[in-house]
């Protein structure tokens, strides 16, 4: 259990949120209505996808306050708890890509497959392109092709959810490139990477306890963020970290755990010392 405690929690939030949406549409529950693009919490609090909102603004939409407030709430939330926490704790695609990654490890595909070079920055380019196309075409461009939106909308409203897109992502991640969609292409992931750059919740590494087994790097979907493993202690500061906690679970030496951003910790310590 200890080895999968975060995994269970993540699946719980991911599936739980989808169930709430589904129940809202099918049985009229009023806890969380709508879908991940925009929702209504307890019939009062509006929530909205800040990246969708940004595209709409680029498209030149004049928007009502509800959706703007909703997007600000969500943006603030993720800016504090880690932007890409959305990826590993909420996004339904994560379950598909995690499955592909897991299978990859089980089948040892990564060991035999030559690494194709692809830049992690592609997602930022796709993000910029989404915004430019939104401006040029006069509508939110990524929202029209987003497999994420197709999935959560399809599940919430009990209709076709772009199974084709999900299968493509799954097969691509499994056979062509490790973590291709979430790790390189998805502009929403890119957006949240930027948004969460200065977030407070971070994975923290303790180099003294580390035995250099490198299991964490093997399991991490964004290996670059763990560059400090075994070298120096400190928080994982890169925005690309999804706060999925796989590294924490896999570490047998308690060298990794969640913490509040180290700078903040330092200032707290300093103020304590002064006091």
């Amino acid at each position, binding site marked *: 259990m200890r080895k999968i405690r975060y995994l269970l929690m993540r699946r719980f939030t991911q599936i739980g949120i989808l169930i709430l949406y589904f129940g*809202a549409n099918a049985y009229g529950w009023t806890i969380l209505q709508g879908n991940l693009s*925009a929702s209504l919490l307890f019939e009062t609090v509006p929530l*909205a996808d800040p990246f969708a909102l940004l595209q709409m603004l680029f498209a030149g939409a*004049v928007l009502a306050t509800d*959706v703007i407030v909703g997007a600000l709430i969500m943006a603030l939330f993720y800016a504090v708890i880690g932007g890409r926490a959305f990826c590993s704790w909420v996004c339904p695609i994560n379950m598909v890509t995690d499955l592909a990654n897991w299978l990859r490890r089980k089948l040892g595909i990564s060991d035999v497959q030559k690494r194709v070079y692809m830049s992690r920055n592609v997602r930022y380019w796709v993000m910029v392109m989404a915004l430019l196309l939104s401006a040029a*075409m006069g509508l939110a461009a990524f929202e029209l092709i987003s497999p994420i939106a197709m999935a959560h909308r*399809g599940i919430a409203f009990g209709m076709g*959810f772009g199974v084709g897109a999900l299968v493509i992502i799954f097969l691509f991640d499994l056979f062509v490139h490790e973590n291709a969609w979430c790790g390189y292409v998805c502009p929403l992931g890119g957006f949240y990477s930027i948004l969460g750059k200065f977030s407070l919740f971070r994975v923290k590494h303790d180099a003294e306890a580390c035995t250099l087994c490198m299991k964490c790097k093997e399991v991490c979907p964004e290996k670059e963020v763990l560059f400090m493993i075994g070298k120096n202690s400190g928080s994982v500061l890169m925005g690309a970290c999804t706060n999925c906690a796989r590294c924490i679970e896999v570490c047998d030496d308690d060298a990794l755990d969640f913490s509040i951003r180290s700078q903040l910790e330092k200032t707290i310590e300093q103020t304590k010392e002064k006091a």
Partner: protein
Amino acid sequence: MKKELPNDRRKFILSMARGVGLSAMGALIWSAYVDEVKAAPLILRPPGALDEPDFLKTCIKCGLCVEACPYDTLILAQPGDNNPIGTPFFVPRDVPCYMCDDIPCVPVCPTGALVQDSVTSEIEGELTWDITKMDMGLAVVDAESCIAFWGIQCDACYRACPLMDVAISLQYDKNERTGKHAFLKPVVHADACTGCGLCERACVTKKAAIYVLPNEVALGEVGDHYIKGWDKADEARLKDAKGETTVTDRSNRSAVDSLNDAEDLY
């Protein structure tokens, strides 16, 4: 070291070119797809919706309107529908809009894609829902397949209309074929019809002989050149109108001369 420099630069330029090329390709495919789906003209939007181009900009595809509709009228476009994915619409022949008195689908819209002001009126100083202001489309009758035009008494659509005698009325014409019967022909009045589609739903023919089309599809446009001389309000448009006189060589002669002069023709 020196030898490697041009090589590096070449690599750099090549990878840049590759990046630019790939992005251009992606952008082209992407925009072609977006262009394709947004050109779906035969789609009926929920009550109070903005004009189609603005609606497409503004709707975030949350489906809150769909959830608010008690009749399951509204649905979200799925992949493969050939409609802009995720946007709400309705198919009246399946489930029409029942024109709820409190129009529950509109106030839940968080983005303003469905506009409250467009379906409310001020009655005795109070803002009240006004279903007569809905304008989702326009019902059109196909006189060929409407059996009322054959002389059979039907009036199913007329009776189904929530704005009976306002949006749709029956026109009585003599049936010359039998000499003693009347036609009871349904006539839709564009200014009052909301496009709810209750008539389309009620129509008894195999494929509905009365059906709702989006206004842009169903309606023509006169333009500025014609004015209803019998309509004071319309006539007023002439008040400050300035005539435009074109002067050519021909204007030197009188119009009659110009017409009688056939020289140019041969």
